[in-house]
């Protein structure tokens, strides 16, 4: 199972370019009048186009690390290299205009319209008015807000979730190669947060930014991250690896402790159904059972209706489905919820593509042969 988890995860394929966009070299930070450093001799690289999640207990220096990247906090020692350029000594304001920055409290400018908020950096960079207006509309579309309705509204007229969408749009405004996000979804209700996370991944597929993302939520880190950097006390980097690797092979006791007992279950959310070898099922219009495969009746639209024959399962089991785009975690959720021993995996049109049995979870989950 552990090997399967690694090879089926999407992570490996997403950061295929290994050119580092951000590199921290022996960075340390000791705050004035404090004996112990907040960040100790930190070195790691963020590959171009990757999402790196910085996670750890509170006071572990993850936010300090993030803020040193755009020099809201100056490192005591060490170098920070952005896209090949040492930025430890450049003008911090100019540097920040090249880096998107999104914070938990959003911090929209209350006296400026949504459009003007998003236009902040392009205006400072001296873009032409028409270009700014176009960019604002484009970004509002990107984050799922209709420009006509939102451009001229003010921050206080928006919900928390909408405000953070605008916050992300403002961070993206000047098309910076790098985005720094400090718990951007931390103050948002769980349902909206889940939706924002999903949208965030969709947006990232289009924009392919290099993103550093601070979170204290392991599920979020596993869901969004191409890589996870786990920080321990004193800002020491305990492990820096793909989510699957962190969950299956914690580097030390600290990480194992942090990842906790739920690691095996969390790992299920890394297994995408689309990449698994699913059990074959037969769609029948009422004929005889076929050589040991489950047989399914479909409705007029081709969607699964009920089981006709289930080899190896004694009782009648309810019909439950899960979309192909989901993960094994979703499949388990559906099965537990419906008290079903197996679940039909359906494609976007609702047509059955295969089945996943409860037994297979503790047995052998086989990845598909890679097509590409």
């Amino acid at each position: 199972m552990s090997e399967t988890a690694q090879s089926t995860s999407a992570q490996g394929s997403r950061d295929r370019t290994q050119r580092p966009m951000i590199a921290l070299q022996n960075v340390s930070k000791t705050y004035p009048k404090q004996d112990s450093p907040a960040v100790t001799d930190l070195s790691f690289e963020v590959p171009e186009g990757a999402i790196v999640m910085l996670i750890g207990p509170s006071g572990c220096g993850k936010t300090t690390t993030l803020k040193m990247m755009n020099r809201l906090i100056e490192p005591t020692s060490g170098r920070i290299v952005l896209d090949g350029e040492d930025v430890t000594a450049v003008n911090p304001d100019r540097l920040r205009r090249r880096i998107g920055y999104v914070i938990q409290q959003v911090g929209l400018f209350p006296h400026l319209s949504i459009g003007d908020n998003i236009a902040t950096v392009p205006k400072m960079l001296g873009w032409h008015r028409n270009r700014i207006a176009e960019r604002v509309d484009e970004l509002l579309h990107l984050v799922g807000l209709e420009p006509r309705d939102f451009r001229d509204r003010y921050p206080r007229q928006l919900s928390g979730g909408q405000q953070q969408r605008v916050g992300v749009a403002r961070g993206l405004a000047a098309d910076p190669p790098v985005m720094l996000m400090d718990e951007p979804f931390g103050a948002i209700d769980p349902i909206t947060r889940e939706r924002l996370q999903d949208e965030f991944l969709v947006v990232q597929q289009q924009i392919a930014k290099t993103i550093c993302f601070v979170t204290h939520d392991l599920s979020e880190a596993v869901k969004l991250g191409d890589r996870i950097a786990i920080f321990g006390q004193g800002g020491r980097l305990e492990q820096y690896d793909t989510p699957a690797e962190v969950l299956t092979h914690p580097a030390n006791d600290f990480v194992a402790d942090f990842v906790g007992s739920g690691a095996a279950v969390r790992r299920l959310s890394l297994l995408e159904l689309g990449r698994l070898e699913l059990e074959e099922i037969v769609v029948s219009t009422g004929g005889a059972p076929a050589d040991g495969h489950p047989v399914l009746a479909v409705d007029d639209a081709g969607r699964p209706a009920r089981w006709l024959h289930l080899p190896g399962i004694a009782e009648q089991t309810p019909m439950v489905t899960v979309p192909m785009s989901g993960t094994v975690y979703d499949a388990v959720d559906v099965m537990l919820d419906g008290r079903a021993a197996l679940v039909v995996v359906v494609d976007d049109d609702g047509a059955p593509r295969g089945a996943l049995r409860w037994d297979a979870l503790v047995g052998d989950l086989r990845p598909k042969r890679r097509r590409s």
Partner: protein
Amino acid sequence: MDSFLAYLSDNQDELVFYARSHFLLVLYSVGIATVVSVALALVLHTNRLTPPSWSRSLRSSGQEGLLLAFSAALTVPSLALFGLLQPILGLGTQTAVVGLAIYGLYPVLRNTVAGLSSVDPAVLEAAKGVGMGPTRRMVRIQLPLAAPVIISGIRVAVLIMIGIAVVAAIISDVGFGELVDDGLKGLGTEGAFTDVMVGTFACLLVAAVFEIIFGIIQRFVTPRGIRV
């Protein structure tokens, strides 16, 4: 009533002169008080303007100390203050303007400081994070957000000054103070009480004019996004 109207028409030119000078006296004074207080508040509020070698506690105690000094100035009896200023600045309008301005310092400084520090720290962090320098942050973000509170402070200063401007008549000859002063000196004689009364009510009129002007300014400077 007839005699009152007759009084007004008899003294029309004089009353218009007093009204104009009273209004201008307060206007100049509040202008000076505003410039001085807002400048001082900016100096003490912006890290860039106070030497970075000053510790945080020194910066905030600088602010507190200034507020304390200005509030102390507010408690000095106006009659005494003009008396104290007279040997330095002499008799005349300049002394009246300076004296009045001193009474305006505290409310303007207090409200400017309150307005600037009422700006949400998250908003300032975001401003810094998108690459706004200290000056731009102050001009584009903090001052517009603090403006309504600062204007309220200026309004309070104006109301205080309109009353005290009457006392300024002892060292200058501008404003309705002249009228009240004349009236008080000649109490018991004919028309003296009318002088005092007209002087007092005319102050209310000047206050009303200022309130209308500031009502318009306040509406104008309050950004739409923070209007309730």
